[in-house]
Every structure is written in C-alpha cells, then in structure tokens.
C-alpha cells in the first residue's frame, strides 16, 4: 500500500507567541518549529500499517518555506521512505498565511494527485490554526472518501475498516474502499522516536521539491489577531512554594470549603 502522510510544521507548544506588526498574523521571527503532533500520530499509523503489511511505501508531504525541511527530515528519520516538499515563499503572495484552508488544501492535493496513493493520512487538526479541516478538504478535492478522528486502520477486503472516535467515549467502525483519506486522532498509537540509525539513513533518502500552485483569492480574511481578553478575574498567588501552599490551604478551608 502506498501511503502519503501530509504533515504540517507548527510553532512549538511552549513557544511564546507574539502578534506580528500587521496585527493580523503571528510574528514568526523567534518561533521554534516542530511537527504538528496529530500529524506525528498520522505518520506513526502509516509506518505501522507498512510494517504490518511488510510491504508498501510511506511518503511524507509538507508545504511551506525552507524551514519545513527539518520536519520532513524528522519524518524520514522515523521511517518514511521519501519526502515531498511543496515549496512556498517565506512571506507575501503565495506564502502559507496568504492562503485559506482551501488554498492550502489545493497545494497538498496537487502534489498527492501526481503520486496516486492508496491512502492519505493526516492529523485531525493543527496545533496552530486549529481549523481541523485540511484533511477533509483534500479528500473532497481528490474525490476520495474520508473518515475523521480515526484511531485504528485495518485492511478489509479490497478496502479498509477504521475505528473512529465519537464524542463522550463512544466509537464507531467505518468501512470504505481505497483510495481514501483519513484524519488521525492522537492516542491510537504510541509515537516512536527517531533512532540514530534512522537519522543516518534519512540522509540518503530522497526529498523532492514541488512548485506550489498559485494562490487563489481567500474567501475569508483575518482582520485582527490579539491575545484574548481575560473574562474572569484570576487571583494570582505569589511567593515561595510554601507561602503559596499556605495561601491555597486557607482558600480551600474558608472559601472553597473542601477541607
């Protein structure tokens, strides 16, 4: 089975994020980047599917400027066979922030079409913009069936059977033919680390650069970005750990009344 895993590079979770001077985007100048965690689970699922089948190919795909090659290398070190980098400008016209979900999905769909994979996997959402739509939109552009919030994938005849997470602790199996696209929920597998051998091997693996298709006009527009206003007045406690602990105990006794 030929599997393409679409991954996104996002700011690290603990990164302090600042609003850019235009007031409509994130200042990327000091950001440390990492692989979007749900996409790491998608990669893991792809690698395990290939290992179970003892055949096939896992191709990792990422759109973005030069910096995303570090995320592609990480995926190759974990075991992906080769990489496709859809190159977009750092900023300005055609850069990722100038594209809406549909514009980004088109970049990915174009690159995927040329590969004719059996299965496309991606994370259910990104940790930065969190739209949670790219996978489904790519499926629609490719004209293939999809399932979202998938925890497990198994073969079922000529197609696949997936376990999908529903709300409140419920699940559901869904069967579909191939080719198909799945968005992967975290927690279905344990993530692997890249081994030293994997990192070494990654150096000889192919990364193919693909030109980005032109950006169409956005149908939505980000007009303002700002830190959220505090709606609740939080009483912040300061002091040494013991002083803070004493203050909390006071509150637990006399205000919250749980002691």
């Amino acid at each position, binding site marked *: 089975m030929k599997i393409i895993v679409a991954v996104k590079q996002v700011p690290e979770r603990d990164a302090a994020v600042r609003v850019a001077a235009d007031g409509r985007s994130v200042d990327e100048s000091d950001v440390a980047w990492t692989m979007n965690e749900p996409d790491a689970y998608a990669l893991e699922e792809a690698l395990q599917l290939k290992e179970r089948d003892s055949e096939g190919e896992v191709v990792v795909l990422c759109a973005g400027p030069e910096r995303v090659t570090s995320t592609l290398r990480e995926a190759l070190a974990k075991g992906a066979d080769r990489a496709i980098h859809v190159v977009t400008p750092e900023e300005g016209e055609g850069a990722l922030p100038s594209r809406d979900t549909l514009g980004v999905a088109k970049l990915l769909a174009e690159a995927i079409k040329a590969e004719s994979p059996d299965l496309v996997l991606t994370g259910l959402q990104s940790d930065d913009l*969190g739209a949670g739509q790219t996978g489904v939109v790519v499926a629609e552009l490719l004209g293939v069936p999809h399932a979202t919030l998938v925890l497990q994938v198994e073969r079922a005849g000529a197609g696949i059977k997936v376990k999908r997470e529903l709300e409140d602790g419920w699940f559901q199996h869904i069967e579909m*033919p191939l080719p198909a696209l799945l968005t992967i929920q975290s*927690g279905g597998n344990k993530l692997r680390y890249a081994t030293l051998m994997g990192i070494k091997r990654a150096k000889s693996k192919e990364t193919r650069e693909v030109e980005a298709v032109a950006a169409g006009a*956005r149908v939505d*527009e*980000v007009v*303002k*970005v700002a830190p959220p206003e505090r709606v609740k007045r939080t009483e912040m406690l300061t002091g040494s750990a013991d002083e803070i602990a004493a203050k909390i105990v006071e509150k*637990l*006794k006399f205000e919250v009344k749980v002691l």
Partner: protein
Amino acid sequence: MSVLVVMEQKGDAGWHRISLEALAAGQKLAAELGVSCSAVVLGEDAGIAPLSAELATKKLAGAWAVGHALLAHYTADAWVAALQQLIAETQPRYVVFPHTYQVRDYAPALATRLGQVLISDVTAVHSGPVFVRQWMQGKLNAEYAHKGDGVCLVSVQAGSFRADEVEAGSCEVKTFAPQLEAAQLRTKPGEPFREATQTVDLSAAQVIVSVGRGIGEQENLGLVEELAAALGAELAASRPICDAGWLPMERQVGSSGQTVAPKLYLAVGISGAIQHLVGMKGAKTVIAINKDADAPIFEIADIGVVGDLFEVVPALTRAIKGAA
C-alpha cells in the same frame, strides 16, 4: 438574505446539546443583520418528526425537515449532498453549525463543494459580522471576515452561546426531500459502541485534581497522586496524558472524555486547550498551577499560580496534610 442553522440529532435523546447553542447564535446573527433565520434537521422522516415539531416552537422563519431513508445513519456523503441541495434551494447567506465531531467530518467537504471555507470553532460573533476563533491552542484570538457574495459557513464552539437564550415563537415545518442514491454513499458506518464499561465516574466527583503535559514524565505522576489522596480527590487528566497511556482513558476530562462539574478543579500543568476546557468549565472553583503565564487555563481559573509545579505541588500536599 437569511441565516440557516443546521441542527444535529444525537441518538434517541433528541438534540446534540450544542445544536441549541448554534440555534441561539443563528437567531442572534439574524437579528443583528435584520434578516430571517431558519433551522434544519436531517434524518429519517419518522425519526426527525418530533425534532422538527420542536423547532416549530422557536422564533424562526421556517423549520426544515430534510428526510430520507439514506439519512437514517450519518454519512458525510449523504449529509453533504442533502445540505448542498437545501442550500441551493433556499439560498441562505449564512449557515451556522454546532462544532461537533459530526460537523467536523462533513462541513469542510460541503464548504469545498460550494467553493467556500468553513470558519470553524467560532467562540464569538462581533458586528460586521466578524467571527472570532482561537489560534495557538487559545493563546490568541483571530477575527475572521467572510469575503464575496457566496454563502458563509460558520461552526460555533461548545459553550460559546447559551442554549437558554434560544427565542421561542412559532413557525411552519417545511419538508424537503433530497435526491440521494445509495451508490453515492462511499462509506459504510457501523453502530456506535463503547469500549468497556466505565468504572470511573468523574462527573459525580466533588474535588478533582487534574494533570496535564506539564508533569513531563510518567514517573512524576506520584506527585499529583499524593496531592489527590491528601485532598480526597479523584485524579483526572488532559488528553495527552491518557494518549501516552500514563493514566487510563476513562480519567480524561474534555471533549473526547468526561464532562465534570466539581466544587474544586485543581489543574496541574494543564495549559487549557479548548478541548480540555469544554469538559471542566462547569467547575465551581478552578485553581491552576502552570509555569506558563500565558497558558489559556488562567483565563478561566479563579486562583492561579505561575510557577514550578514540582515545587508547588509537594508544598501544597504537605500543607494540606498539616491542615487536616
């Protein structure tokens, strides 16, 4: 120009709870724009009859009952096709969805088919209209405007609008029969199931100590276990802790886990991603300990400590034991 709200049925229990919040959001948006608001429910004719009858008691221009045998069980293909046809027929300017797992599954595909983009997981609507959604796991708010003359699709986040603000009234139930064929449905859904009987009921707990990514390593869990024991609290966690297998899935609080409403929710090393917050917003008092002063958990905490949990938590456990 009008607003259409897509309601969601859940099991035999009636509405998915966010549907009514979406309905309140749709009514508000319509009032602001001075246009009419309608609502739609999809399903098998008999199954949705009581729901469309209930919609007829709301302040709406109409309640659409979109019935078809192929809508008896949810599939993205059937929902996209049926709604695309209803939208072509009724030409709404705005379509408002509840941001449920089901909507996440089909609404982006529907938007693509309409040449649009869903503005998803919206927490507020300002005049314009401008739709507010979160970036960076809640560290930033981004305001989106829709451009062009096409239909604007928006999904609203759980808890962002109030179901009790749905305005009552009366309207006519209108039926719409979509053209669907079995061959269009590419996926075959199975019956929903649960893994195992839940043995931990966090929803009844009065005191909860909850742990997140900030705990760093599984070996460090002892710290919060001791704190929970000293407080007589149930131990809970955010999703990443359960994903890693450090605590069982049934201790997870959030949109994919349990919803809790204790007297005290003590969040240790939890940044407060929205998926977690929706599960514990109902707590009476929230105390948060986190090293990141910008963590969104502090936006809903009553009491906050910006500090090293590895110092504060043991000190707190000692102080509680001393106070008992």
